[in-house]
């Protein structure tokens, strides 16, 4: 009998593969949601022409300002009148038009009129003021953000890492000059400088990327220099020097790999800031020139139409926020895994 009870306990205690607490624990230990959202952004960016249901830059004016698919008709009550002047169109409706909605309508009646049609599944997130599909524009916007972030990261990263390696390795005057330059760059009011440059050089993709590179390289340089200072005292570096390895070889093969963990973490956390900055510049009208769909400029487009057409500004902004949020969460997780020493950063 006792054995029987024991077996019951065993059966009841068998762990289920998917349980609510289990899922919760998994979400807390692994960055599942951020990684999912980030892959969504990357796939959107890479495969935009195949995924986007419509052309992002060509709109149909007859179908402008359509709401997202889930919102219904917006209606209002209007009083039926014989004739309606332009100035009272909001309150009254002409008998002839009222008859089209309700054949029994008579002068003086109150009648429900559709002032904005419901959304349709043709445009899942609705359309903007030029009748362009919002979903397609958000998808193409991911592409712009990704390209800007990628180029900035590669160019700014290479410059920053190179200068950081040199500053850390040579020390002395080289270090002094490079690090003072870093200090100066970090104390520039960047958005302001970006605006001025855009006025002077004109609005273009390369100006944006240049500005963002200026922003990002000092951060890499500072981090790498710190790493080099500790790495260059290691025995294997001294050994390489003794055995006659050239300086570039030591830096590239013996020092640089030691900084990679830190670099990955810094890069992940900085990408979010780069995407935010790009969107700020686009919002201020100094970003990627129109009509290219950039998230920031899309929010700017929808800003004045918030009262009637909330979706135009909401969705691109949401896209920026979720992307940056995922990058931050993923970066935090990566930092804790790869480089716990950086935990105090930021």
């Amino acid at each position: 009998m006792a054995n029987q009870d024991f077996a019951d306990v065993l059966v009841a205690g068998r762990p289920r593969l998917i349980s609510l607490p289990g899922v919760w624990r998994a979400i807390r230990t692994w960055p599942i949601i951020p990684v999912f959202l980030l892959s969504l952004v990357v796939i959107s960016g890479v495969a935009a022409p195949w995924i986007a249901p419509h052309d992002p830059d060509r709109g149909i004016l007859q179908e402008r300002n359509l709401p997202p698919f889930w919102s219904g008709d917006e209606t209002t009550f209007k009083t039926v009148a014989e004739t309606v002047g332009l100035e009272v169109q909001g309150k009254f409706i002409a008998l002839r038009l009222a008859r089209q909605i309700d054949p029994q309508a008579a002068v003086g009646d109150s009648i429900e009129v559709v002032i904005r049609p419901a959304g349709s599944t043709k445009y899942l997130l609705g359309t903007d003021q030029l009748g362009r599909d919002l979903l397609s524009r958000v998808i193409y916007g991911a592409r712009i953000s990704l390209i800007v972030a990628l180029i900035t990261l590669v160019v700014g990263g290479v410059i920053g890492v190179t200068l950081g390696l040199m500053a850390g390795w040579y020390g002395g005057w080289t270090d002094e000059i490079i690090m003072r330059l870093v200090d100066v760059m970090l104390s520039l009011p960047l958005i302001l400088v970006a605006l001025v440059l855009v006025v002077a050089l004109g609005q273009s993709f390369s100006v944006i990327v240049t500005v963002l590179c200026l922003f990002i390289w000092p951060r890499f340089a500072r981090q790498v220099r710190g790493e080099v200072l500790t790495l260059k005292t290691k025995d294997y570096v001294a050994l390489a020097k003794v055995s006659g390895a050239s300086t570039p070889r030591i830096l590239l093969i013996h020092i640089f790999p030691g900084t990679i963990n830190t670099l990955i973490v810094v890069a992940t956390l900085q990408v979010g800031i780069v995407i935010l900055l790009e969107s700020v510049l686009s919002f201020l009208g100094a970003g990627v020139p129109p009509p290219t769909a950039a998230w920031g400029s899309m929010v700017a487009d929808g800003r004045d139409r918030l009262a009637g057409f909330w979706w135009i500004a909401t969705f691109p902004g949401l896209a920026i926020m979720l992307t940056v949020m995922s990058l931050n969460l993923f970066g935090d997780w990566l930092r804790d895994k790869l480089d716990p020493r950086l935990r105090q950063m930021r």
Partner: protein
Amino acid sequence: MQKFLVRRFFISIITVLIVSVIIFIMSRAAGDPRAMLLDDYSTMEDWDRMGAALGLDKPYYQQYGIFIKDALKGEFGQSIKQGRPAMHIVIERLPATLQLAAASFALSLLIGVPLGILAAVKRGTMIDLFGRGVALVGQSAPPFWLGIMLMFFFSVHLGWVPPFGRDDPKGIILPAITLGWFYAAANLRLIRSAMLDVLDSEYIKLARAKGVSSQSVIVKHALRNAIIPALTFAGVTLGALVTGSLVVETVFAWPGLGKLAVDALFALDYAVLQAVVIVFTLLYVAASFTVDVLYAFIDPRIRYT
């Protein structure tokens, strides 16, 4: 210490100089002002005479010298939009920006510090989760979008506060929240992680073992040490708040320097733009200089890095 001060001051000067060079290049790249000042009946002699009067016949480095001399006197020329000296317009707008920056700064501390302490002390609870949520949104949401959404909800939808302008005293609430949220988030994270580190240390355990009350441990022993990184950061934000005002003032039509700069940019009002950028840069550089110096006094380790 003296060496540190001198070096730090030197960097500030260089930063201002670099910005001035950028502005100078901008004003020259924008085109020859003579094309706008002279009419169709002018002769080549008029052109040359005007060039001499404006100093345009001199080589660029001399022109830059003249530009710096004027800038030091606060002369950036007339605004083409308002027909008044650019510097006057800038000075007029300064209080609005400073007011907004002060309000956001206060807000970022009032929200960030207590919530950060609570999140650390009550680690793993709903309060902690809430605090981290606030921080995450603050650090991830683009400020312009956050402002627009707040405006949509609290002004257009609920009608609690005016959507823009500075006439109503309640008008500062939304811009201050928008601008302050990002820094509140940063403060919160800094305080939380510093508190967690400190609370884990030996002397806190000793204090607890001695029977010091929990409240006293947190306030007297832990907070004093945890607040240092947040204080530094608070200083750094003071400068960054000035730049952040560019975005927020544009969204809420707040009549400060940030809006002035963006307006001047699109009106191609170079005189005003130059003046704004210089004033902004000076504020920014002065703020970060002061903070670095203050921090070097508080924490001597800084001077040697």
